[in-house]
């Protein structure tokens, strides 16, 4: 069986706790989907829920609010990984409930 557990944890550790252009607390909020007060809130919300609806204007708005491109890059990665991770964890929990094993 393929086992992504270690690689996934390494990815999480890098994007959330490693060095970057954005504050780790901002990255954590983007990852967890709790960035209500962030300047890129609308952009990050779209990335989480329906990324195909992101527009140039969303990105411009985040830039205009003072975020650099490197900060946007990092926060977008955190939002995408965080949401995909929650979907993955929810599905694993459903599998454990159905099968009685982890």
């Amino acid at each position, binding site marked *: 069986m393929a086992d992504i557990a270690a690689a996934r944890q390494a990815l999480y550790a*890098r994007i959330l706790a490693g060095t*970057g252009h954005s504050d780790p607390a901002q990255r954590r909020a983007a990852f967890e989907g709790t960035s209500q007060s962030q300047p890129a809130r609308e952009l990050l919300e779209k990335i989480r829920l329906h990324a195909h609806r992101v527009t140039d204007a969303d990105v411009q708005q985040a830039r205009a609010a003072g975020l650099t491109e490197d900060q946007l890059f990092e926060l977008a990665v955190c939002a995408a990984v965080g949401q995909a991770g929650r979907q993955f964890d929810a599905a694993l929990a459903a599998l454990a409930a159905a099968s009685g094993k982890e």
Partner: protein
Amino acid sequence: MRLSILNHGHGLATKALFSVIRMASGHPVLDIIKLVKYRADFYGKPMGAVTQEAMRGPSAWSVADRELMAAVVAKSNTCAFCTEAHSSVARQALGDSARVAAVLEDLETAPIDAPLRATLRMLKKLSTEHSVHAADMRALLASGVSHAQIKDALAVSFAFNTVARLAEAFRFEMPTSGAMDAGAKFLLARGYG
């Protein structure tokens, strides 16, 4: 792409690599390559390790099966770039374009085995509704898919539910079919790591 750093912000060594890719392939560098090579220590390298294990690690699913899963997850995210990319890899791995097209056109009538169909159905639901329930998993297990196979399929979904979001957020350009097929050939031969 919406961020200019992803087009022009790479270091000199990476820019040199892009020149080599352009010369060797005869095509522009795909936007996915530009993404994973930008500050690769932040995203490209750690995500590559996840994707390599999911797509090429040990599994009862074939490489072609997992590429089909990637294409279905991408389509469920309305990501045209990723759908075409992994359709192309699946076509090359299977040697059967019609089957890949049928899966993406109508999963319920496509000529594939019941366990793969049931798995793709679950991945589609997970990707569009953001969750699945124990009942979905019980149905999947009852269709003959093993616990390990389900976990392997979920690993594929994690990778492509991430990548498809970024492709759309950053607005990857759709390349020519020749460029996409060349990229797919590389992925099939060399993997994601």
